[in-house]
């Protein structure tokens, strides 16, 4: 009886330890994943912003000399980034000028204008990240470039983390 009670307490203690350790591990994993999710989003915005700057500055002459084909050639370099689902350039007057999509469709994005006085803006919308950046040449606004990316990179990353965390926790608890 005594032995049985002792075994039961040990079991309970072990179970409690496992639960506490598991909870601590889960919390650590959750904190880590949350941190990684935030930094991944920031990195994604940063990368898309750089791509928008490059596309914009390479489209200046196309905008100034009204050559949409040249601007589309510039945008087509974005096919190297599979996460980009569409991009387009608008003139300073807000007219659609050139567009890009990996499947070749020429639909122009209907997007809100940049907030007044802002050079760049980004927003997460319908599972996508959109970065809008003004194209400024010699101090004058020449156009606006919009780039839309899917969030598959982040979701794949989170799934990988979840699998690794699940494997780690289960092996630690066994």
């Amino acid at each position, binding site marked *: 009886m005594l032995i049985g009670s002792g075994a039961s307490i040990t079991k309970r203690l072990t179970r409690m330890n496992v639960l506490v350790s598991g909870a601590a591990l889960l919390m650590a994993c959750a904190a880590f994943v949350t941190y990684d999710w935030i930094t991944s989003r920031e990195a994604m915005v940063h990368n898309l912003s750089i791509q928008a700057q490059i596309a914009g500055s390479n489209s200046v*002459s*196309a905008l*100034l*000399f*009204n*050559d949409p084909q*040249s601007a589309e050639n510039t945008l087509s370099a974005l096919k190297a980034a599979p996460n980009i689902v569409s991009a387009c350039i608008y003139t300073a007057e807000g007219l659609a000028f050139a567009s890009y999509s990996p499947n070749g469709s020429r639909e122009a994005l209907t997007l809100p204008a940049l907030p007044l006085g802002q050079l760049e803006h980004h927003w997460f919308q319908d599972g996508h990240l959109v970065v809008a950046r003004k194209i400024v*040449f010699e101090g004058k606004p020449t156009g606006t470039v919009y780039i839309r990316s899917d969030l598959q990179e982040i979701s794949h990353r989170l799934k990988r983390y979840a699998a690794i965390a699940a494997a780690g926790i289960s092996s630690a608890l066994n």
Partner: protein
Amino acid sequence: MRAHRSSGIYRCTGCSRGSFPQLVALAALSVFILTSILHAQSAHTEYQVKAAYLYNFAKFVEWPPEVMSSDSSFNICVLGRDPFDSTFQTTIAGESIKGKNVLVKRIPRAQDASGCQILFISSFEEARLKDILDVLDKMSVLTVSDMPQFTRRGGMIQFVTEANRVRFEVNLTSAERTGLTLSSQLLKVAIGVRRG
């Protein structure tokens, strides 16, 4: 001309057989006037675009430092009969290029182009283009024109109208020979880049 009703049919009392040619003449005159107005409007738009392009060329061309330091203004000159009229005033008035105020000058002779950074050569000067380009050969002046075969004959930038759009082609060798550097951004949007 008045119309009156006779036997249920309206007839034109002033409409004799002799007035038909008058009607045709009136219609032809109306078409001519309308066409002239439309042509004047499209020509105006075309030279507005060309004036804007002349200004934009300056953003993608580098002149030798001694050329840029010699004058306090950036001079865009027109040689010969000026097709721009008042277009420059509306397009580039008050603008500056490379920190200098833009001035538009009309010059009668190529010899007067020494202070110009960009020279538009009117197509009316086509007959004496060779002499003009010979004079400009030693000057770092960006030569632009819309006369046919301009780049083939040694000019630097030639306006070409393609599908109602103003485009341009470039003779890179002519530009580089006088010390001008044309940006790759400019060459990218040219419809043709000639070397030699």
